[in-house]
C-alpha cells in the first residue's frame, strides 16, 4: 500500500486533528475555565485531571503521539503550498492561508507551553493556579498566550470545517456554507471560554 501512503497520511492528519486533539483542546479549555471560579476551583479541577488513572498512557495515546504526528505532517503540508491570497483574495483562500499560519504558531506555542508546564511538572514543579498566574503576570507572556489560544481555537474550528469536506460529509456548497457558520460559532464560543480563563489568572 506504499502508493496510498500520502492519501492515508492526509486522512489520518485530518482525523487526528479532531479526534483526539480537537476533543482534548475543548476539554483543556473547559478545565481552564474553572479559574473564573477562583484558585481553589481551578486547583481541584486540575488536580482531578492530574490524578486520572493511567495518566501517562492517556497522555501518550490521547495527546503526545497524535499531536506530534499532526504537527510534523502539518509542517510538511505548510511547505507544500504557494500561497496566493494577493491574487485570489477569496474567503476560503484566506482561511487556507490562516490555517497554515496558525498551525506554525501553534507548533511554537505548544512546544513552549508544554516545556513551561508539563515538563516542569516532570522535574517536580507543581502545576496549579499560582504557576499560571505567575507566567501570565508578564505582559509579554500574556500576549503570547492570547495569540496561542486564539490560534488554537481558530485552527480547530477551521480544521473542523475542512475535516467535514475531506471525509466527504459536507459535499454540497450549501452544506459547506452552513458549516462555515457553524464553525465560526464554535470559534467564537471556544475563544470566549479561552479568554475568560486566561484573564481569570490575572484578576
Amino acid at each position, binding site marked *: 500500500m506504499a502508493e496510498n501512503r500520502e*492519501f*492515508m497520511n*492526509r486522512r489520518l492528519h485530518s482525523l487526528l486533528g479532531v479526534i483526539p486533539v480537537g476533543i482534548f483542546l475543548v476539554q483543556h479549555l473547559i478545565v481552564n475555565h474553572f479559574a473564573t471560579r477562583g484558585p481553589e476551583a481551578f486547583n481541584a479541577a486540575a488536580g482531578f485531571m492530574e490524578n486520572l488513572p493511567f495518566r501517562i498512557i492517556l497522555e501518550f495515546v490521547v495527546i503526545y503521539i497524535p499531536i506530534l504526528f499532526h504537527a510534523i505532517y502539518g509542517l510538511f*503540508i505548510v511547505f507544500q503550498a504557494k*500561497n496566493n491570497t494577493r491574487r485570489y483574495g477569496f474567503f476560503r483562500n484566506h482561511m*487556507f492561508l490562516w490555517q497554515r499560519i496558525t498551525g506554525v504558531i501553534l507548533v511554537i506555542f505548544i512546544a513552549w507551553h508544554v516545556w513551561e508546564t508539563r515538563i516542569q511538572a516532570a522535574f517536580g514543579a507543581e502545576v496549579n493556579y499560582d504557576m499560571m498566574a505567575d507566567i501570565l503576570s508578564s505582559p509579554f507572556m500574556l500576549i503570547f498566550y492570547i495569540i496561542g489560544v486564539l490560534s488554537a481555537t481558530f485552527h480547530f474550528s477551521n480544521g473542523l470545517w475542512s475535516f467535514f469536506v475531506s471525509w*466527504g*460529509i459536507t*459535499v454540497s456548497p450549501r452544506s459547506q456554507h452552513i458549516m462555515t457558520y457553524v464553525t465560526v460559532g464554535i470559534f467564537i464560543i471556544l475563544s470566549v471560554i479561552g479568554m475568560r480563563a486566561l484573564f481569570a489568572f490575572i484578576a
Partner: protein
Amino acid sequence: MSENKKVRFIITRQDDPESQPYQEEFLVDYRPNMNVISALMEIRRNPVNAKGEKTTPVVWDMNCLEEVCGACSMVINGKARQSCTALVDQLEQPIRLEPMKTFPVVRDLLIDRSRMFDALKRVKAWIPIDGTYDLGPGPRMAETKRQWAYELSKCMTCGVCLEACPNVNDKNDFIGPAPLSQVRLFNAHPTGEMNKAERLETIMGDGGLADCGNSQNCVQSCPKGIPLTTSIAALNRDTAIQSFKNFFGSDKI
C-alpha cells in the same frame, strides 16, 4: 476621437524555456469592443514597443476564440482567464499579461499544458468501449443525470484552476482540480462506472485527491462554472468508502 486613444499593455516575455523573463510595454490603438487577443494580433502585425523600438512579435496560443477550447489562457491583471473573452473595455489599464507560470513556459505567453493531459491519461478519463467483439449497447443514462453530467463535461482543460490552486506548484505533485472532476464525470456514466474503483484507486495515489487543501480558488476561477469543489468533496466521500472497502470488505470493485 477614438483613433487617438491608446491601450497600454505590459507583457511579461520570455525568449525561450530557459531564459529569464522580462517585461515589455506596448501601446495599441483602441478600437471599440476589442479583446486582449485582437490587441495581441495588432502587436503581431506591427511589433513595435512603447518606446518605438522594433521588437519580436509576442507569442501566445489560441484556437477557437469563443472560450470553448481553453488554449488562450493567460494571467490577465493578476488573474488567470481566457484572453479571448477578456474585453479591453472591462479591464483596468495598463493591462498586464503574464503566462500561467504553473506550467512550463515555451515562449512569451505560450505555455505547455501537457501535465494536464498526462493526468487525464493517468486517471483514465474516458469510457472504455473497445472489445474484440461487439459489446452491444451499454446501460441507459437517465436524462436528468445526463443534464447534470453535461455541466462537468464542459471542462476544456484550460489550466485556470491549476494556476489558481495554491497546492499546484513545483513543491507538490498534485494533479489539480480539473482531472479530479473528470474522474467524477466518468464514474457517473453507467458504462464508465464499471472502472470506478480503478479511477478512485489512482486518485488515492501520490499527487491525487488528498493534496487538495480546500482553498476553493478553483471553483471561483473556473471560466465554465464547473462545481469543482463539489466534485472534490464527492470524491472525498467515494474514496473514503473505497478505502473502507479495501481494508474491511471483500467486494473491492
